[in-house]
C-alpha cells in the first residue's frame, strides 16, 4: 500500500437509530386514535422539562402538559402546535423514506404562517428529536450549512463528488453535512484550529496560513460565532477518525468566547440528547489572560525605552497601559515576525466587562463547579474566568492581531 494511503480515511456511515420506525409507530398511533375517535397525542419533551424533571416532582400536572401535545387539545394554541409538529414529523418521514435531507429553513418556508418564525421550527425539531430519543440528524433534518472549512485536505462526498478545501483565492468552503462525507484525505495536516470569528478565519484562509504555518499544515474551521450542530458533528467525527490530529480553539477572551469553546468541547446543555457532537480533546489555544496581560504590561526593554518620555506624570494623561505603547510598536512595524510582547493591541480591543458579561462568567463558573470531576481543563477555565472578573476586562481575538498579522502569534502557540 502506498505510504500516503493512510491519510485517506473513510468516514463510517451513521448507524440508523431507528428514527424511521419510531416515527412510523407514532404516525400509526395517531391514525389509530383518529379511527377510534380518541384524543391525538404526540409526545413532546423539552430540554428544560428534562432538566427540571429530576428534582421537581411537585409540578406533576404541569409536567404532563409539557410531556405531550394533544389534538384537539384544550386551547387553540395547543391545536396549532399539534399541527406544526405534525407537519415536521410528516416532512421528516418523507425525507427518511426517500433518503434525502430537509433543512430547517426549508421546513419553515413550507408553511411560514403556521410556524410564525424560524426559531419555532428550530425548537420544535430539537424537542421532537429529544422526545423520540434520537438525534436531529437521525430525522434527516439539518440546519442550513453555516460552518466554513479551509485547509489542504480533500473531502469526497457520498455522491461521488470531490472537494478540495484549499482552492487558491478561496477563503473557505461551506462545510458539508457530516453524513454526506464518504472519505477525507487528510494529507499531511497535523492540527485543526476552530476559530470563533469569521473575519479572523477569512484573513487566515486568504493568507494560506494552513500551509505557511510554522507548526506544519493544518485545517481551519469556523462556525461564525456560536457553533451549530453541523459544525460540532464534523469536529466530533474528525476527532474520532483522525486521533493524531491536534485540536485547538481560538476564541475571544470573554465569557461568550469561553462558552463557545466549551460548547465545542463538551456539547451544549440545550442539546444534551445529541450524540457525537463533542470534541473532548479540543485545547483552548487563546486568547488567554496571559496574552492580554503580556500586552498590558511593559516588557523590560520597553520600560527602559520609555524612560525618556516619562516627564509628564499626570495620571489623567496616561491612557490604558496597553494603548500607551502603540507609539513604540509602530516604530517597530518594519521588523518582521516581531516578538509578541512588543506588539501591544490597540486600546479598543481591551474593553471592560458589562454586567451581562459578569453574570455569564459566573454562570459558566457554576457549570464548571457543578461537574463532578474538576479536571485540569476545568480548573484552567475557572482560573481564566476568575481573572477576567478580577481584571474586569475582555479582549477580542484582534487584541493579538494588530496590523492584521495574527500568524506570528499562532506560530508561537501552535508549536508550543
Amino acid at each position: 500500500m502506498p505510504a500516503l494511503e493512510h491519510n485517506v480515511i473513510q468516514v463510517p456511515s451513521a448507524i440508523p437509530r431507528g428514527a424511521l420506525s419510531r416515527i412510523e409507530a407514532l404516525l400509526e398511533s395517531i391514525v389509530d386514535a383518529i379511527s377510534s375517535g380518541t384524543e391525538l397525542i404526540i409526545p413532546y419533551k423539552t430540554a428544560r422539562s428534562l432538566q427540571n424533571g429530576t428534582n421537581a416532582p411537585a409540578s406533576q400536572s404541569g409536567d404532563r402538559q409539557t410531556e405531550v401535545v394533544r389534538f384537539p387539545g384544550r386551547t387553540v394554541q395547543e391545536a396549532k402546535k399539534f399541527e406544526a409538529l405534525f407537519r415536521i414529523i410528516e416532512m421528516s418521514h418523507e425525507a427518511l423514506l426517500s433518503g434525502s435531507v430537509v433543512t430547517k429553513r426549508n421546513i419553515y418556508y413550507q408553511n411560514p404562517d403556521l410556524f410564525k418564525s424560524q426559531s419555532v421550527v428550530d425548537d420544535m425539531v430539537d424537542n421532537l428529536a429529544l422526545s423520540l430519543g434520537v438525534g436531529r440528524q437521525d430525522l434527516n433534518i439539518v440546519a442550513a450549512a453555516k460552518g466554513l472549512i479551509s485547509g489542504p485536505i480533500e473531502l469526497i462526498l457520498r455522491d461521488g463528488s470531490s472537494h478540495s478545501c484549499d482552492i487558491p483565492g478561496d477563503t473557505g468552503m461551506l462545510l458539508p453535512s457530516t453524513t454526506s462525507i464518504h472519505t477525507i484525505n487528510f494529507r499531511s495536516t497535523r492540527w485543526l484550529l476552530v476559530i470563533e470569528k469569521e473575519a479572523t478565519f477569512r484573513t487566515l484562509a486568504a493568507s494560506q496560513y494552513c500551509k505557511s504555518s510554522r507548526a506544519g499544515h493544518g485545517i481551519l474551521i469556523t462556525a461564525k460565532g456560536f457553533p451549530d450542530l453541523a459544525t460540532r458533528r464534523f469536529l466530533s467525527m474528525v476527532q474520532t477518525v483522525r486521533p493524531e490530529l491536534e485540536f485547538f480553539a481560538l476564541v475571544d477572551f470573554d465569557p461568550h468566547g469561553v462558552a463557545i469553546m466549551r460548547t465545542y468541547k463538551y456539547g451544549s446543555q440545550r442539546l444534551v440528547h445529541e450524540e457525537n457532537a463533542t470534541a473532548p480533546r479540543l485545547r483552548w489555544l487563546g486568547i488567554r489572560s496571559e496574552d492580554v496581560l503580556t500586552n498590558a504590561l511593559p516588557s523590560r526593554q520597553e520600560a527602559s525605552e520609555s524612560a525618556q518620555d516619562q516627564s509628564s506624570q499626570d495620571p489623567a494623561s496616561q491612557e490604558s497601559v496597553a494603548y500607551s505603547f502603540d507609539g513604540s510598536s509602530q516604530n517597530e512595524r518594519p521588523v518582521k515576525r516581531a516578538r509578541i510582547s512588543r506588539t501591544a493591541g490597540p486600546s479598543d480591543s481591551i474593553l471592560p466587562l458589562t454586567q451581562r458579561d459578569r453574570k455569564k462568567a459566573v454562570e459558566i463558573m457554576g457549570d464548571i463547579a457543578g461537574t463532578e470531576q474538576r479536571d485540569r481543563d476545568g480548573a484552567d477555565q475557572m482560573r481564566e474566568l476568575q481573572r477576567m472578573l478580577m481584571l474586569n476586562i475582555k479582549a477580542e481575538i484582534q487584541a493579538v492581531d494588530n496590523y492584521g498579522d495574527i500568524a506570528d502569534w499562532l506560530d508561537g502557540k501552535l508549536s508550543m
Partner: protein
Amino acid sequence: MSKQYLTAHTVDEAHPAEIFSLAPTPTSLFSASGASSLRVHSTTETTFPLQQTIPNAHKLGCHHVCTARGGQGAVAASVGFGGEIKVWTKNEEDGAWSLDCELPPSKQKQQQQANGGGGGGGGDVWAIALSSDEGYLACTTSDGRIHVWDIAALEMIQTYETGARGAGSFAMAVDLSQDGRLTASGHESGGVYVFNNDAGRMVYSLSGLANPVRAVAFSPGCKRLAAAGNAGVIAIYDMEHGEHVGNLTAPSSRPAWITSLDWNDTGEYLLSGSLDGKVKVWDVARGVCVATHSETDTALWSVRWLPKTERALGPGMGKSEKFCAAGASRSITFYREATGS
C-alpha cells in the same frame, strides 16, 4: 533614606489556585483564592504556619476577604465569585474561626428594590471593608453602589449611589476610615468618591485618575486617601478639603496596573502591589519609593502590612515592621524590615 526589607518567609502553594486577597488580624492572616477554602496563617511564628483551613467557604472561589484595620481581629468577612457575603467570627477560647452569618441575598435584593433599585436585579457584590469596631460592613456592587450593613442586625442601613440608579460605574474598591466617619469607593470609570457616614451623603468626588481604580485606602489618621489602579500611579488626596495633593510614581518605568494598596500603622508608608509582580514601599511625605521587591513576575493581587502587636511573639520575630504579598504564584511571601530596633 531607603528602607531595607528582607524576605522573612514564603509559604509555597498556600492555596491550590491564585490568591486574590489577604487580610491580617493582630495575630493571623486570612488568605482567599480561586479555590473554595479560606485559610488562616499564624503571624506570630517565624514559619507563619497554617492555623486553620475553612473548607467550602465559597464554591466558586473567593475574590475579597477583609478584616478591620485597627480592629480587635475577632471578625472577618469574605465575598465569593458567586456573590455571597459571609461573616466569620473567632472563638475566644480556642481561637478557631467559624461562620457567623451569611448576609441574606434575598434581603440584598429586596432592599435594593425598596431603595428604588429594582431593574435587572442589581449588580453583583464586589469589594468589601469592615469598620474598625467590626460592626459594619461596606460592600460595593458592579453597578456602582456602596451598601453599608449592620452585621449584628443583618440589616442594610445605607446605600450610596454613584450614578444614575443602577447604572453607576463598577465600584472596584472600597474602604472605611478608622474613625468610622468616611467611606471611599474607587470605580472602573476612574472616579473616586468619598461619603460622610454621619450625614449619609457624598462629600467629595475626586478627579485625577482617568483609568479604572482598583484600590482605595484611608490613612490611619483619616487625613489622607490613597487611590490607584490602571494608571499605575498612586494619587493622594487630602480629606480635610477633598484636594488632590500629590502622586506617587516610579520615574524610571512605565507603570503596571496597581491592584492593591495599604498604609502602615503610622501612616508614613504606603505599600503597593501590581500586575508585574512588584511590591513597593513608598515614603508618602517625601513622595518616593523606598523599596521594591519582585520575587515573582506574575501578577500580585494583594499586599498587606501586618499590624504591630503588643502580644507575645515567637522567638526570632522581633518588633520590626512586616508586610506580605500574594497573587498568581499561589504562594504568600512575608517581608520584614532589616534595620529595625
